[in-house]
C-alpha cells in the first residue's frame, strides 16, 4: 500500500480514528508519519512557550554567569547553565507549572553537605585539592595535602 501523502513510499504507519462512528483511516510512510508527528510526543514534552507572550514585559534578560539570553532559551528550550535557573526564575516557574505536577523537589537530596561531619567536609575539600595538584603535576603541594589528609583521617579514627 502506498503512502496517502507522498504517494511514493510504502505505507508502514496505519491509524484509524473513529469519531462518533465516522471512521478515517490514514496510511503513511515513515517519513510522512514523522512529519505528521505520529508516535512522536515531542510536542507534549517540549516546554510550553505560551509564557513567552510575557516576553514583551521583560527586558532581554541575560545570565551573568554564562551569557545566555532569554531568547536563547526561547529558541532552544534549553538553559545555558545552572545559574540560569535564578536569572530566568519567573519564566521557568511559569513553565514548570504547565509541565510538572509540582514545583518543589521532593526526591533524593544531594548527599554532599548534610550527611558529612565538619571533619569529613575538610577531608573531602583537601582530597579535591590533592586531585587538582596531581593534575597540575604540583607534587610538592600534593605531598603536603596528602600529609594533612592522613593526619585528619588518623584523628578521625582516634575519636
Amino acid at each position, binding site marked *: 500500500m502506498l503512502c496517502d501523502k507522498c504517494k511514493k513510499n510504502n505505507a508502514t504507519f496505519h491509524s484509524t480514528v473513529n469519531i462518533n462512528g465516522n471512521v478515517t483511516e490514514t496510511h503513511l510512510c515513515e517519513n510522512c508519519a514523522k512529519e505528521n508527528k505520529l508516535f512522536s510526543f515531542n510536542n507534549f514534552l517540549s516546554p510550553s512557550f505560551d509564557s513567552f507572550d510575557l516576553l514583551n514585559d521583560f527586558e532581554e534578560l541575560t545570565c551573568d554567569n554564562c551569557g545566555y539570553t532569554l531568547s536563547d532559551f526561547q529558541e532552544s528550550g534549553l538553559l545555558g547553565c545552572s545559574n540560569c*535557573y535564578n536569572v530566568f526564575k519567573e519564566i521557568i516557574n511559569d513553565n514548570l507549572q504547565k509541565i510538572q505536577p509540582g514545583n518543589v523537589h521532593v526526591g533524593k537530596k544531594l548527599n554532599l553537605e548534610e550527611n558529612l561531619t565538619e571533619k569529613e567536609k575538610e577531608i573531602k575539600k583537601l582530597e579535591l585539592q590533592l586531585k587538582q595538584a596531581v593534575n597540575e603535576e604540583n607534587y610538592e603541594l600534593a605531598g603536603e595535602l596528602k600529609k594533612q589528609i592522613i593526619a585528619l583521617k588518623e584523628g578521625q579514627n582516634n575519636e
Partner: protein
Amino acid sequence: MNNNIIVSSRVRLARNLKNQPFTNNTDFDKANNVLTSAFNALSEISNFNLYKCKNLKSEMLEEMLEDHLISGELINNSDISGVAISPDNTVSIMVNEEDHFREQCMLDGLNLKRAYDIISDIDNELSLSLDFAYDEKLGFLTACPTNVGTGLRASVMMFLPGIVLTNNLEDMISTVSKLGICVRGAYGEGSSASGYMFQISNQFSLGKSEEEIVQLVESTALKICDLEIKARKLLLDNNKDALKDEVLRAYGILSNCYKISTSEATELLSKVKLGADIDLINLKEPQLIDDLIKNISPIKINKLSNKVLNENERDLFRAEYIGRVLKNNRI
C-alpha cells in the same frame, strides 16, 4: 507471559556540574574539562571501560546506539563527549550529552526498582567527588526544565502487537498520558515504532519522588501488559485463522527469501515473535527470534560478516543468515 511483553527496564538520571555551562552553551575547552573531571571521578568508583567518542569508529558508536548504551545526541557531540560502560553492559554513564551526565542502568524484563537502586548508588558515589548543580527547591538542575528535580526518566520497553493490531494504540496512549506517562518508539524521542516495540516512560521529573515515579511507570506497564494480553486474546478469538496464516507466511518468507531489508525482516520477525508468544507457531527456541531482531541491522550484519558490505550484499547476507538460524527451528 509478562516476560515476553515487557522486554527491558531502563532508568536514567540527568546531572550537571555547578558553575559550568551546560553542553549546549559550552566551548571545546570547557567541555573537555568536564570530560576530564568526569573520567577522573568514574575511574575511581568502579571498573568502567572509558571511551572518548572521538576515538571510536562510527560503526562502534552506531552499535552502542543500537544496544541503547549511548544516545544519538552523544554521537552528535562526539568531538567533546564520552561514555563509561560497565563490563556487563548494564550501566553506562554518558558525558556531555544534553546534560553533563546521563547515568543509566538497563536490565532485562520488568526491573525498574533494581535498576534505580544500582544507578542511584553510583550517583551517590559520583556526587562525593563531583560538584553537581543542585537547588534546595528545584532539586537537580538540568539543561531542559522537563528533567529538573529528580532528573529521572524510568522507561520500560514493551512489545505490543496485540494493542496495535486491534487499533487500540491511540486510546492506550491518550489514557496513559493522563496518568503522566508517555509512549514513544524504541529509540526514544522522535523515533518510530518499529516491530511493535514501544518505550513507556514518565513525563515529569519534579514534585514526585524517585520511588513514586518508578512505581507509577511500573504499575502502568503492568496495566498495559494486561491490555496487551486481552488484545491478543481478542485477536485469537476473532481472527485466529487469518493471524496464523500471517505468522506462517512471515516464517515462510524469512526461511526462504534470497534477500531482505532490515525493515522487512524486523516486521516479519515481529509477527513470528507474536505467533510464538501465543502458540500459533511452535519453535524449538523462541529466544532465537529475539536474538535475530537484535542482530539484523546494517551495523550488526557488517560485524557478523566481518566485512563492510554494500546494501545489496547486506540484504543477501541477512536473508542467508536468518534462513540458517530459522532452519530446523520449527517443531
